[in-house]
């Protein structure tokens, strides 16, 4: 089936640029007639993911795939990986340092927020092997 894909790099510790890819993705989607509510959910998930990678993960990339029936966002990084995924998915849990908290990050809402906003959410991670997230958003014949 025909689909449109694009990938963007995410850099470790770069909080000024983290989020830029999601903005590009948002603007790409805005040039289509996809429902703005869906675009917002995609952008929020992408943004949270980017911040997570920059903050904890290391270097990585975010990819979008627009199909006829769904949008898929994949976020992969080569960081330290997550030891306990169930714990990381809990609201309010965060390993962010004080420095990041001062900048307004680290509220422990990143992963739960992504889980909440995506129609399908899958996370794979183990210590030393990075983190790999796939999120799907149903378009239900929207495009």
């Amino acid at each position, binding site marked *: 089936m*025909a689909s*449109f894909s694009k990938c963007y790099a995410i850099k470790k510790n770069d909080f000024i640029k983290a989020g830029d890819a999601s903005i590009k993705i948002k603007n790409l989607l805005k*040039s*289509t007639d996809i429902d*703005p509510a869906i675009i*917002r959910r995609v*952008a929020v998930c992408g943004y949270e993911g980017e911040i997570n990678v920059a903050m904890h993960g290391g270097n990585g990339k975010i990819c979008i795939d627009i*199909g006829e029936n769904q949008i898929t966002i994949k976020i992969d990084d080569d960081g330290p990986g997550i030891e306990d995924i169930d714990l990381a998915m809990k609201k309010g849990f965060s390993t962010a340092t004080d420095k990041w908290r001062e900048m307004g990050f680290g509220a422990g809402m990143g992963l739960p927020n992504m889980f909440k906003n995506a129609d399908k959410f899958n996370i794979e991670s183990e210590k030393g092997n990075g983190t790999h997230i796939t999120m799907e958003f149903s378009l239900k014949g929207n495009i």
Partner: protein
Amino acid sequence: MTEREENIYSSYFLYKKDLCENCSECIKACPTHAIRIRRKKNLRFLDKCIGCGECIRVCPTGAMTTASKGIEDLNKDKFNIAIVSPVIYSQFPDIMATDVLAGVEKIGFDLSVDLTHFLELFQFATEEYIKRNKSNDEQTPYISPICPIVIRLITHKFPNLLKNVLPLERPVALFSAEIKENISKEYKVAEEDIELWHITPCPAKIISKKTQFLNEKKYINKSIGVNDIYVELFHEISKIKKKNLDLYCSGKSNVLFSGRSFEWGLSGGEIAGINNDKSIAVSGLKDTIAYLEKIDLGLLKHIDYLELRICPEGCIGGALTAIDKYIAKSAIRRLVNIYGKGRRLSKEKIMKLYDDGYFFTTVDTSEIKDIYGVKQNEPLSLDQLMEIDELVGIIKGRNCGVCGAPDCKTFAEDIVRGKAEFEDCLVPNLKQKVDKKKAENKTE
């Protein structure tokens, strides 16, 4: 060739073909990609121009200018009132604001009026509005309605943020709504004989018909750039007194002004007069867009109010100013030191006006779209997205701009929308290459 063919107008600008050297700087600088040159010098403005003036700033030959007719447009049979924005004071370092006002009358206006009281009124009202409507999660952070270009940018690129625009009338609208009536009584002139002029650094305000932000259109008759009158005004002012500020250094001796009013033209000057420590001031095209993108993502919820200005450093960086923005900034700092930062107006009076609804706009911000006539692009289909991407891949260009579009991607989009031709691109046999690729895709 007739003048009509030589000069091309957008809603806000005038392009003089004979001065153009085809460098395409303006095309690349335009934030909404509203300029194209197709088929040798035939420049076109698309319906996406927001009047920001970037094209004027980057044009090396002066081919891109405002559509201002200048002071020659002054009709001597009318009673001409000039509304003087505080930015104008910053253009005359070490000259008293009152002398500037006097100078404006010498160059041909019957009356010059200072706007700054209304700026303070607006700041009070903003402060109160935020205080009373803080918990409205849908609309926060509120966006300042002051910069007309920001509002046009939002209309064009972020229409769902129009709800965030503070629904208060801008000071100049509040002011002009009253002034004709008052002057008519005081000077015994018929209201229809009064022409209201706005002297402004802002290119988006030059064609008054297009300055239709909320209620403004009803009052302002003509607008003129600060740089249109600068030299004449400078000569007149130097004749008036030739005294410098030191002679007036008696603190707040002049009750007409507060330092706050001069700060208005600076980035941060609007929020400086608003008691709210959760406000941010952002200036410059790039940063303003970056912040709007963030609000669009649902971020910055912890901020109450955003003062956004398209021009770098605020209105003193406007495309129609006469002196450099940093010199102007320093001039303002001196004025603030002399006049102090006190407020001139009594809160009780203003609160009464506020409760009477004096400040609220009568136009629904969501209607602004129609008022400006800024058009959005037709949405692209998934197939078109892929077509554009493929075309960009085939061109493999470096955004040379020969085609007359700002970059290869925009050119590809123009092609897919049927608004450009393959031959406009430097890549030889582009059409054949695209057809070949299409055939390959089919067989796959």
